[in-house]
Structures are given as C-alpha cells and as structure tokens.
C-alpha cells in the first residue's frame, strides 16, 4: 500500500548501513591526517580487522571477543605505520600501500591455514554477531503509516556499530575543536616545528593519532565481517578504505562534511544495489556492472577536481625532522 514510502526508507536505511564502515574509517583517517600523517592503509587495517573479528568470533562464539581481536590487530598495523613513518620518517604512502598488500595476502593465507575454506571464515551464528537492534515498541508502531516505518526501519533496525559510527562523528568534532589534545593535534599537522618549540612531543602526538585511527578502523572491520555479513571473505573491503579516504578529503579533513561525503557514497551504493535488474524508463535495464562502478567513478571525479580548493593540513606527508 505505502510503496512510495517503503522505497525511500529502504534506500536511506541501506545508505546508513553501507556508510557505516566509511564513516568509521574516514574519522580514523581524519585523526591521522590532521596530525600530518597520510593514511593509505585504512583499507588494509580494516581488512585485517575484519578477518580478526570473524576468526575470533567463530572460535570463541563471542562477537565482543571478535571486536577486541579486530581492534588489537588494527592497532598493531597502525603502530607499524607509526613506527615506519614517525620514528623512522619513512614515506607514508609507501608504508600504507605496503600494509594494504601485506594484509590482502596474509588474511587469505591465515584463513586457508585455519579454516580450510579457501580464505573464507565459517558462517557465524547470530549469537556471534552484532545483530540489528529492534527499538522498543517498533512492532506496535509498525502499522502507523509513515512514522512507523521511519521509527522501525530507519531509526531502528540497525546493529550497535551503526549507532556507534554516528556517535563518533560529533565526538571527533568535539575532540578536534574543543580539547587540548585536538588543538595540539591540529597544530602538529600544520606546523610541527611550532609544536616542538612549544615543548610538546611531535612523535607522541602523532602516535596517539595513529592509535585512534587503529581503533576506528578496527571497529569498521568488525562491522564488515560480523555485523553486516556473517563471515570474512577474501578482500571483502573492496576498496572501501580508499573511498573513506576520498570522502575524508572531499570533506576537507573536517568531521561533519566528511560524514556528509560518506553518506553520499553510501547513498550511491544503496541506489546501485536497488537499481540492479530494474528497468528504468527510456534507458531500459541498466547493466549491474555499470551501477556497481558508479561510486568508484565518482571517487575519481571528485578527487580529480570537484573538491575545490581543499586545504590539506600543511605538514601532511612530511616527516618531522628537527635538525637537517
């Protein structure tokens, strides 16, 4: 009866679900990059975390244990990136790409060795996953036109991590703009020498930024393998780490615009899924491949020139050296 309302609600609800890992990664990347460290390795950290979460959850049967393992693994990789780029002043792009390649291979190797399913992890039972939460009274409301659907399917019906991701955005904004740590973090991404001259450790600040990034990407990976899906499959991140990076840059390294960009990418993806097999007037049936490629094409176009004058943190990508 209310098809005209079902469709947008489903699309928006799917948007949220698709955007969740993007939001988490983008906020993590934002901390890293505002401190002056490029993080290409969002993808790798998220993939490793996804594998760790699924593996741990399938062994212990606990979603929370999965989350813990995912965060731990993402933090190890984050520290590796930090060690290479902060302590040893290595090239940040190279380090990030290396992490991505390493993880793409290692997850499959470990997966085959441990689970003998060609790199997949076993399908998880609902108890070992983060399942959608039905809001109180959504059943009772379900028959109320419009509001019922909005309450039950858009506001409710998501898993814990979706809400967490939405909470992390204002938190990121607050930390960046309203705390001592945030002030120093923004400063170290602009003029690290000034931070050093003010008697603050540049390296420790950047390590903390990297650790926060590890935490968020760990949660993002968990979401992919044990909340949105019920198992890990090889290369399941499928470039979402890069899209998150693009969204963050598109959002000009600011939390709220970055959230907007993530939601836009999520929306496109949700529409793409919906449009599969649908016959559009005039155009006819749109090939699935064409729809699937849209978010990536958009990423390229946006990064290539539509972001306007994005003012990156001034010291981004430059290792800090006091004496030359």
């Amino acid at each position: 009866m209310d098809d005209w309302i079902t469709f947008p609600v489903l699309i928006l609800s799917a948007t949220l679900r698709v955007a969740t890992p993007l939001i988490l990664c983008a906020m993590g990347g934002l901390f890293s990059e505002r401190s002056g460290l490029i993080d290409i390795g969002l993808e790798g950290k998220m993939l490793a975390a996804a594998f760790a979460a699924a593996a741990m959850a399938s062994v212990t049967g606990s979603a929370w244990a999965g989350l813990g393992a995912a965060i731990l693994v993402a933090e190890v990789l984050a520290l590796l990136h930090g060690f290479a780029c902060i302590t040893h002043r290595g090239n940040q792009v190279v380090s990030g790409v290396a992490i991505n390649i390493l993880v793409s291979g290692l997850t499959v190797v470990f997966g085959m060795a441990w689970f003998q399913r060609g790199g997949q992890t076993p399908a998880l039972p609902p108890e070992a996953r983060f399942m959608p939460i039905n809001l109180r009274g959504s059943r009772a409301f379900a028959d109320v036109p419009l509001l019922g659907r909005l309450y039950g399917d858009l506001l409710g019906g998501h898993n814990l991590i979706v809400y967490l991701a939405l909470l992390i955005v204002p938190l990121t904004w607050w930390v960046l703009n309203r705390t001592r740590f945030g002030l120093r973090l923004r400063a170290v991404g602009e003029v690290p020498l000034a931070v050093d001259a003010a008697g603050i450790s540049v390296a420790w600040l950047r390590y903390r930024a990297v650790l926060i990034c590890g935490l968020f990407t760990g949660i993002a990976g968990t979401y992919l393998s044990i909340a949105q899906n019920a198992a890990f499959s090889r290369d399941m991140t499928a470039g979402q780490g890069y899209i998150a990076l693009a969204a963050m840059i598109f959002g000009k390294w600011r939390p709220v615009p970055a959230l907007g960009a993530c939601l836009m990418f999520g929306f496109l993806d949700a529409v793409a899924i919906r449009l599969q097999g649908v016959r559009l007037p005039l155009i006819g049936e749109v090939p699935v491949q064409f729809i699937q490629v849209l978010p990536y094409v958009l990423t390229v176009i946006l990064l290539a020139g539509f972001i306007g004058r994005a003012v990156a943190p001034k010291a981004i990508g430059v290792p800090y050296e006091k004496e030359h």
Partner: protein
Amino acid sequence: MSTPAPPAVELRAIDKSFGPVHANRSVSLSIARGSITGIIGENGAGKSTLMSILYGLYEADSGEILIDGQAVRIRSPRDAIAHGIGMVHQHFMLIDTFTVLENMVLGAETGPVLRPSLESARRELERLGNDYGLRVDPDAMVGDLPVSEQQRVEILKVLYRGARILILDEPSAVLTPQETEQLFRILQALRDRGATVVLITHKLREIMAVTDAVFVMRHGEVVAERRTADTSSEELAELMVGRKVRLELDKTPPHAGAPALVAHGLGLRDSRGIAVLDGIDLTLRAGEIVGIAGVSGNGQSELLEVLAGIRPPTVGRLTIGARTIDAAHPAGPAEMRALGVAHVPEDRHRYGLVAPFEAAESALLGYHDKAPFSSHGLMHHRAMVDHCAALMERFDVRPRRPELRSANFSGGNQQKLILAREIAAQPRILLVGQPTRGVDIGAIEFIHRQLLAARDAGCAILVVSVELDEVMALSDRILVMYGGRIVGEVAGETADERTLGLMMANVWTPPEAPERQSTAVTAP
C-alpha cells in the same frame, strides 16, 4: 663577574657543529638579570645557533648552561620553558589557521578541555595589553594579521608562559622602522619590570638604541663584550666584520665597452598582482661590474630572476644583442644561457646545485647537454669528471674530489664550484646573487678576484648583494633599489655608505649643487 646577584644566564664553553660547519666554538657569555643584552654578528656568525641551544632546540656538543647561577640541562624547549626561558623566533612559530588565543594557549593549556584555557588566555591577553601596550585582537586568525602583529602574538605567547628570560631572534627583520621603535618600547617596559631580554641582531643601530650590554660574535666565537654606553657603532662594526673591513680590492679602472644587456621599463607583478618590479631601466656594459644595493626584499631577487629568464617580465623589454625579450616573447633560462647570460643564483641550495649530486654533475648543470659531456642523449662521465677536476684546480675548490656529493662541500667551496661553472662557460653577461653569502673569509677574497678577472676579460657583470661593503668594493657603478624601483645611482669609486644608506631607505635628497659626474639620480 663580581656582582652579588648571579647572572640570569651564563653559558660556558658552548660548542656545536653541524657536520663540517662549526657553528659555535667554545662560546662563553653571561647575561645580567633585568637587562637588555644584545648579541650582534653577521649572518652565519652563530648567534641563532647559540640561542637555539639555550632554548633547547639544539643540544650543544659540549659546554654548560647556568640559569640564575644553577647549572641546568636543557634538552628540549620544554626544559627551557620550565626554566623561564622564552624565545621569539625569526621565523614565527605560529599556526596560521588558528586564532590568536589558540596560538597563545598551544602547549600551555590549563586542562584537557580547551574552554577554560582560552578564557584565562583572554584575560591574560587583556592584562598584558594594558601593561605593555601589546594589543591584538584575540579572535583574529593569525594568518590574516600583518607581520608586526604576528610578532606581537609571539611575544604574548612567551609572556603567557611566564617567561622571565626572553630571547628575540632578529625581531626587526620583518618590521618597519616605526614598528621597530614600538617593539623597543615594549622591550624596555619588560626590562623595567624585571625581565631579562636577549636581542639577536646584525643591526648596529638597534644595539646602540636599546641594549645595556652587547656581545659580538664572529665565525662562531664571541670576540668581544662591551657595555653599550662604553662603545660605539664604529667599534662594533669593526669587531663584527673583523678582517672584512680590509675589503678594499686593488682593482684597475674599468674599460666599459658596448652595452651587452639593456632593460627598458622592466616590470613584474606577483601572483597577487602587486608590482614587485616597476619601471627598471638598466644597461650592463661589457667590462664593468654593476652592483645592486638595497635592503633585501626590495625587488633585487626578482630582478635577477627576470634577467636570468626564470620569470618573464610582465611589462617592458630586455635586449641582448639582436634578441628582444618581453612578455609576449619570453626566453627561458636555457635560451638565456645560449644568449650568453650566466647566472650564479642567490639561493645556491635551491637553484645553484643539486645537493645529493656528485660535484662533477653539479659542476655541469645547465651545460650538461653540450659536447663533450653528452651526445645522443648519453652522458660521458669521464669528460664530466675531467672538466670538474679542471674547474676545481682553477677555482681552488677543496677537497678536489669530483666524485664527492655536492652537499659535502662547505658553503664557500660550493659557491666557488658554481662560480667556476658559470665563468667557465665564458658568458658575455654574468649575473651574481649574493656572491659570498655564507662563505668563509678566505673564499670571499678569492671570489671577488675571480669576478674582477672576468670583468677584465670583458664580461658584463651584475652583482646583487645585501652586504653593502661587498657592493662598494666590487662595483664600478652602484644602483640602489627600493620598492621594486631603481631609486639611485652612484659611481663606484665615489660611493659612500651614508649616501647609499639614505638611498636604500629612500629618504635621500640630492644636494643643491651636484658634484662632478658621480652624482646620483633619483627616480621621480
């Protein structure tokens, strides 16, 4: 040293080297509490390094630091701040995208949440503004403020951290004379309230105007200590430059020949549309050295860039032989080189050589595509090394090792190598920016002699230098630049420092009766 109160700062036998550069050699000095003490010396004398050691930015290789008579170790700015030392750096340590308040509290926040820090900084800013006349808009974005106000923010930052000892590194470099006066009043107010101020500068006038005592540094050493009341600019100048006072070169009169390069109404606008060069008329004749004097930043660098083909002029034209260069018909550096224009750039590290390259490669930059060094797109290493070895021999570049990385030569030897490269090309016109910046004394004289030799061989030479002595010693004619224009011209042998100084400040008025042919012409 028999004063009862211990000095605020005492440095004992501080030594510091950066690779082959010995920046501080066993420096000892003591600074009385509640005084303004000047440290004067030429560029590269080691003043900034010394103060960076005191502030913990560098650690000394050896030596001792005493604050209020207590030996302390200062390993980082944090230690320095804890001992009440604050520094206003020559290059400001400010975050352009932060407000004044945010810059003030950075590193001195009162708690994990920002708001209380910002509020206390706002109150403190008000108080400091009233006490010392240090007024700035607390909510302005620092990047939007004029430089003089940015400097005020730096001072406020230091005071907000409760510093009792203030180090100012070349504070007037970015200020107009009026702003400098204002700064000095602030410094005096600070001293009168018990603060100790250390002023690093290379300007004699400032030392005489505001300090109580002065240390003179030269080549990394303290060569003299004076009470300002007991000394004079002349004495300080002599102490500062040391041997350089005998910069007189026994040169023969020039045999100026035909014009080699003629500029007509040359103008250049920067990316914001501001004229950085304006109506430059200039003739360089074969066999003469023309010097450009001026306070740095008055268009000298841009003039060199236009003449060398690095930037095309916006208006006006440049004639070299039969070729006329203007905005519509620009000539790049390669074509300029082909026209016989050689260029020794001001910033040798950015434009003069490639630091990680072998000396043999750096000795060939710009001429690398010529026979016998390359053919069919291949370089001939043997020829390059032989060429470089010959240049090193002729220009006394040490060590004589063409395979050594360019970065491993001292500043003076790098400069000799670049000069050798350009002179060896036998140019008709030689442009030289800051011929002896950061060059040791022995090399200075050598470089000057080489320039004179090139002149006598018929080359037209343009020398741009911030060292007035150098311009006066080398030039047959001196042009003075101010605000992108040539505001005066003086013949080399009759030039005196006073007239040139007034021209450089653009306040010179010609005397009623012009003397001889050497009189200056001022631009309208």
